[in-house]
C-alpha cells in the first residue's frame, strides 16, 4: 500500500529526529552527523522553518555534538534551498559562534566563512555583515573573538560605506578591554590586511600592528610577531624600513622571552618577507642576539633555524656572513649549558656543510660535529647521527667513522631503553651509508645483541631492523651472515630468546624468499613445536601461519599441516586456539 511504503521510508528518519534529543550523547552525535538526511526528508521549507530554529536554540549540548553541528551547517546551502536562502543558516551558526569551547567556535566561524562565499553581495550586506556587527559589539568575549575571523571574508564584496564600518569594528576590537579579544584580533591581523586596499594597510593596519606589538599582555604581543610576517609581505620594500622594522626590532629585544622566542621561531618567514637587504643589515645581528639570548628556550628556537636562515641568505655574501657572524655563535652553542639547545643545534648543524662546501666543512664544521658526537646528552648524539647524509654528500662519511663507531656503540648500550630504541631506528640508514663491509665488521654484533635485550620493545625493534637490513643487502647476505645466528638462538635456554627466533623468522621470511625459508627456517620452526614452554609452541602456530604464504604447497601439506594438527590437540588452550586459527587460514590458502 502506498501508505505503508511512505511509513517505511519515514521510519528511519523519524528515529534520527527523535535521537536528536536522546540522552545518549553518541546517538545525538550520530543524528547530527546525519543531519543532511533529515533535512532532505523534511524538504527545504521545513528545514528552514522548523529544523534550523530548533538547532539554533539547542546549544547547550556536548562539545562533540556542537562541533559536528557546526561542521554540518557549513555544507547546508543546498538543503535550505540554495544561495537564495543561505542566510537562513546564519542564526544557528551565530549562536554556535558564542560558545565558550574554542574548537566549536572556530568550526562555526569556518562554516560561516564558507557560506559567506555563497551569499550574493546584496545578501552579504543585508544579512551577513549585520551578523558580523552583532558579534563584534556583543556583550560576550566569545562573540567578539568570533567576529575577528569574519571581517576578511565579507570585506572584499561589500560597498565602501560598509567597508568603512568593518574597518572601524576591527579597530575597536584591537583595543578591546579583554586580552582574549585582542589576541583574536592580532591573530587575524595578517589575514585582514591581505584583503584591504594598500592605502588602508598603510594607514590603518600599521597603527593597529604597532599598538598590538606594544600591548601590555605578553600573549598579545607575541601574536603580533606572526602578523608581522604577513604585513611585511604586503608592503613594498621601501616602506618596510619605516613601517615594519622598528616594531620588529622591538620584538626581537622584548623583555618577555616568549616574544623573543616567537621571533626566533618565525625567523625564516621574516627573512623571506623583508628581503635580502634588510636581512643583511638588521636580521643578521638580530639572529646573533637570539643565538646568544639569556633564555635557553629562545636559544634553542634560534638554533633550530640556523640551517634555514643560512640557506636563505642571498648568495653573494652568504659564505662571508656565515663565517663571520653566524659560525662563531654556533661554536658557542656546541658547549651550551642547556641540553635542549645543543640538541636543537645538532639536528640542523650538519646541514651547514652543503652550504659552506668541502674545505670549510673540514676545517670549521667537522670539529663541531665530532664534539657533539661525544656530548654527554644522548639526544644530541642521536641528532648528529640521524643527519649524516648531508655530510656524506660533501666530505664522505669516512672522516667521521672513526668517531662514529664509538658513539654508536655507546648509544646502543645506553641504560635508557628509549635511547637504544632510537639508535636501532637509524641502523638501516647508517648501514646504507656506511656500506656492507663496514656493517659486517663493526655493527653486526650490535644488531644481534639487541635481539636478546632485556626490554621487549628493543627486541621487537631489532627484529624489524633485521628485516630492513635484509631488504637493503639482499637475501644472499642474509643467508651468510644473519640467518645462521638467528636460527642458532632457537636452542637458547631462555624461552624469550627462542621466541625471538620465531619473530625474526616471521619478519625475514618474505625478504629471504621461499628457498631459504623452506630449507633453513622451516625445520627450526617445526622443531620448536615440541618446546616445553607453551608460549613458544603457540608462537610456532602463529609463525607457521605467517610464513605459510612464502612456502610452496608441498611443504604446507607434508610438513606444516601435520604439525599444526598435532598442536591443535595440545594440552594448552592457547596453543590449541592458535593452531586451529592457523589451520583454518591455511585450509583456505591451500584450497584456493
Amino acid at each position, binding site marked *: 500500500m502506498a501508505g505503508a511504503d511512505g511509513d517505511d521510508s519515514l521510519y528511519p528518519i523519524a528515529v534520527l529526529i527523535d535521537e536528536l534529543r536522546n540522552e545518549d550523547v553518541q546517538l545525538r552525535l550520530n543524528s547530527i552527523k546525519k543531519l543532511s538526511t533529515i533535512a532532505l526528508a523534511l524538504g527545504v521549507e*521545513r528545514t528552514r522553518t522548523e529544523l534550523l530554529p530548533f538547532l539554533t536554540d539547542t546549544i547547550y549540548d556536548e562539545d562533540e555534538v556542537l562541533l559536528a553541528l557546526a561542521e554540518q551547517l557549513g555544507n547546508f546551502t543546498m538543503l535550505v534551498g540554495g544561495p537564495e536562502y543561505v542566510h537562513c543558516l546564519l542564526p544557528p551558526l551565530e549562536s554556535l559562534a558564542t560558545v565558550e569551547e574554542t574548537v566549536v567556535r572556530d568550526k562555526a566561524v569556518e562554516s560561516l566563512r564558507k557560506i559567506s562565499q555563497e551569499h550574493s553581495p546584496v545578501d552579504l550586506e543585508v544579512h551577513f555583515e549585520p551578523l558580523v556587527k552583532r558579534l563584534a559589539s556583543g556583550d560576550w568575549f566569545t562573540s567578539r573573538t568570533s567576529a575577528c575571523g569574519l571581517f576578511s571574508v565579507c570585506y572584499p564584496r561589500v560597498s565602501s560605506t560598509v567597508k568603512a564600518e568593518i574597518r572601524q569594528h576591527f579597530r575597536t576590537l584591537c583595543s578591546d578591554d579583554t586580552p582574549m579579544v585582542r589576541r583574536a584580533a592580532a591573530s587575524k591581523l595578517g589575514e585582514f590586511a591581505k584583503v584591504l586596499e594598500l592605502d588602508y594597510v598603510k594607514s590603518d593596519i600599521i597603527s593597529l600592528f604597532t599598538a598590538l606589538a606594544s600591548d601590555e599582555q605578553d600573549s598579545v604581543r607575541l601574536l603580533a610577531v606572526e602578523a608581522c610576517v604577513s604585513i611585511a609581505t604586503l608592503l613594498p620594500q621601501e616602506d618596510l624600513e619605516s613601517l615594519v622594522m622598528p616594531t620588529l626590532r622591538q620584538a626581537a629585544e622584548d623583555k618577555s622571552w616568549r616574544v623573543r622566542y616567537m621571533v626566533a621561531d618565525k625567523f625564516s618567514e621574516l627573512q623571506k618577507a623583508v628581503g635580502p637587504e634588510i636581512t643583511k643589515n638588521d636580521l643578521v645581528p638580530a639572529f646573533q642576539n637570539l643565538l646568544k639570548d639569556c*633564555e635557553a628556550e629562545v636559544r634553542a628556537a634560534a638554533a633550530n633555524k640556523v640551517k634555514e636562515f643560512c640557506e636563505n641568505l642571498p648568495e653573494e655574501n652568504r659564505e662571508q656572513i656565515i663565517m663571520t657572524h653566524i659560525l662563531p655563535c654556533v661554536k658557542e652553542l656546541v658547549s651550551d649549558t642547556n641540553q635542549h639547545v645543543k640538541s636543537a643545534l645538532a639536528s640542523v648543524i650538519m646541514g651547514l656543510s652543503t652550504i659552506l662546501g668541502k674545505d670549510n666543512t673540514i676545517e670549521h664544521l667537522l670539529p663541531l660535529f665530532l664534539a657533539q658526537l661525544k656530548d654527554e646528552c644522548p639526544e644530541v648524539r642521536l641528532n648528529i647521527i640521524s643527519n649524516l647524509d648531508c655530510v656524506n654528500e660533501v666530505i664522505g662519511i669516512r672522516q667521521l667513522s672513526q668517531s662514529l663507531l664509538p658513539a654508536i656503540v655507546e648509544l646502543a648500550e645506553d641504560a635508557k631503553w628509549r635511547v637504544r630504541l632510537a639508535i636501532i631506528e637509524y641502523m638501516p640508514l647508517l648501514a646504507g651509508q656506511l656500506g656492507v663491509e663496514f656493517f659486517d665488521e663493526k655493527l653486526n654484533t650490535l644488531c644481534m645483541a639487541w635481539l636478546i635485550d632485556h626490554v621487549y620493545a628493543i627486541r621487537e625493534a631489532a627484529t624489524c631492523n633485521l628485516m630492513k637490513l635484509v631488504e637493503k643487502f639482499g637475501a644472499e647476505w642474509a643467508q651468510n651472515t644473519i640467518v645462521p645466528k638467528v636460527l642458532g638462538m632457537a636452542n637458547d635456554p631462555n624461552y624469550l630468546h627462542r621466541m625471538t627466533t620465531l619473530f625474526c623468522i616471521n619478519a625475514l621470511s618474505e625478504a629471504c624468499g621461499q628457498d631459504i625459508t623452506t630449507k633453513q627456517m622451516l625445520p627450526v620452526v617445526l622443531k620448536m613445536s615440541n618446546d616445553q614452554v607453551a608460549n613458544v609452541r603457540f608462537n610456532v602456530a602463529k609463525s607457521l601461519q605467517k610464513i605459510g604464504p612464502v612456502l610452496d604447497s608441498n611443504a604446507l601439506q607434508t610438513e606444516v599441516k601435520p604439525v599444526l594438527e598435532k598442536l591443535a590437540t595440545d594440552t594448552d588452550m592457547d596453543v590449541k586456539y592458535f593452531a586451529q586459527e592457523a589451520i583454518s587460514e591455511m585450509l583456505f590458502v591451500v584450497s584456493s
Partner: protein
Amino acid sequence: MDSGSQLLTDIISTVEFNHTGELLATGDKGGRVVIFQQEIENKNQPQFRSEYNVYSTFQSHEPEFDYLKSLEIEEKINKIRWLPQKNAAQFLLSTNDKTIKLWKISERDKRPEGYNLKEEDGRYKDPNAISGLRVPVLIPMDLMVEASPRRVFANAHTYHINSISVNSDDETYLSADDLRINLWNLEITDRSFNIVDIKPANMEELTEVITAAEFHPLQCNTFVYSSSKGTIRLCDMRASALCDRHSKLFEEPEDPSNRSFFSEIISSISDVKFSHNGRYMMTRDYLSVKIWDLNMENRPVETYQVHEYLRSKLCSLYENDCIFDKFECCWNGNDSVVMTGSYNNFFRMFDRGQRRDMTLEASRENSKPMQVLKTRKVCAGGKRKKDEISVDSLDFNKKILHTAWHPQDNIIAVATTHNLYIFQDKVN
C-alpha cells in the same frame, strides 16, 4: 540546627565571590560546591538589601586513592577561583589536594517537545501510524541550573595543592603545592609547565615550603608566592622560563624582642593577596596582617595585629595544633579595608585610611537577620569589662579561616566551621 547534628562533611573550606559579586561559591570538606546568587532586584532602592540564595550545588571532587603511595586523596575543596565571564555561562576552577577541575555553570530555560515515535511520557507509538515527520520545538520550562565539568587538570602535583590563581590574560592559571608551582593553559589538560621548583636535591635539607601563590591582577607576567619562613617572592615570567630566581624578595627583619621558640612557626604566611589596584599585597601570618608596597622589599608599609593577646598563649596553641591554623585575608573593593578571621567566631576588619579596626562575631546568638552587629572586644588581662570576653574563654574550635568581600559593594561572606554568614554594610 545545633552543632551536634552537623555532618563533618559540611565544614566549609573555601569561599569566593565572582568578578561581579553576583555569585558566591563555597567549597566544603565533602568535595561539594554550593553557589549562591544575589537577588538583584531593587538594587537602586535605598532600602536595598541583598539576599543570596542557593543557585547551584554539585559534587566537585570525590575521594580517591593513590595506589602507588597507598594514600587517600581527600575530596576537600582547597580553593575555588572564578574565571571572568566570557559568555552566558559561568566558569570556575575548583581544586582538592591533587586535581583541579574547570566547571561550567549554565542555565537552561527551554526544553524540547515532540517525538515522532513515542508520546511525551515515553510510551511508544505504533510505527505504522507514522504518517509524517515532526521536528521538536523548544518550549519554556522552569529555570534549571546545570554544572558540568569541562576540564580535569590532573597528575601534575606530587604534593598538596594549596593555591590556584587565574592570570589576567584569561588564558593561563597557576597551581601551587608545597614545593612547586605549575603554569597551565585553560584549554590544555595534558601538559603544564613547571615555573617554580624549590625542592632541594636532598630532601633532608628541606627547610621551607610554599604556602600560597597568586598572579598579579593586572600584569600578566608577575606572580608572588609566600613561604613557611615568612618570606614572599615576586617573580617575573618574562625574565626566564623557569622562575626559580625571584625578582624581589619581601622579608621583614625579625623583632628580636619578640623572639621565641615559636617565632618561625608564627611567621609562616598562610595567605597572600594582591590589592585590586595591583600596587600592594597583603600577607597573613599567625598573629598579624601586613600590607606591603610592591616597591619596597625590606618591610611592610602597614602591620595590623589580629589577636596579639594570643602571643602569650602560643605554647598551649602549639599543643592543641591551633598554631598551625591557616587564616585567609581579603581586601574590599577599593582596597581601603582589609579583613581576616580569628577564633571564637570573631573576625577583624582594619580600615587603612581611618586607622580604625573592628572585631565582629559571626554566630547565631549575636546576629539576628537584619540586625546591626555589635562590635566585640577581647580582654587580655586585668579587669574584664562587661561585654568583653576574656582570652581564656575564647573557643579555639570556632575559627573563621575563610572570608570574602564583594568586589564592589560592602557585602562580606564569613565562613565559620559549618555555617556561612553574609553581612552587609548598614544602609542609612
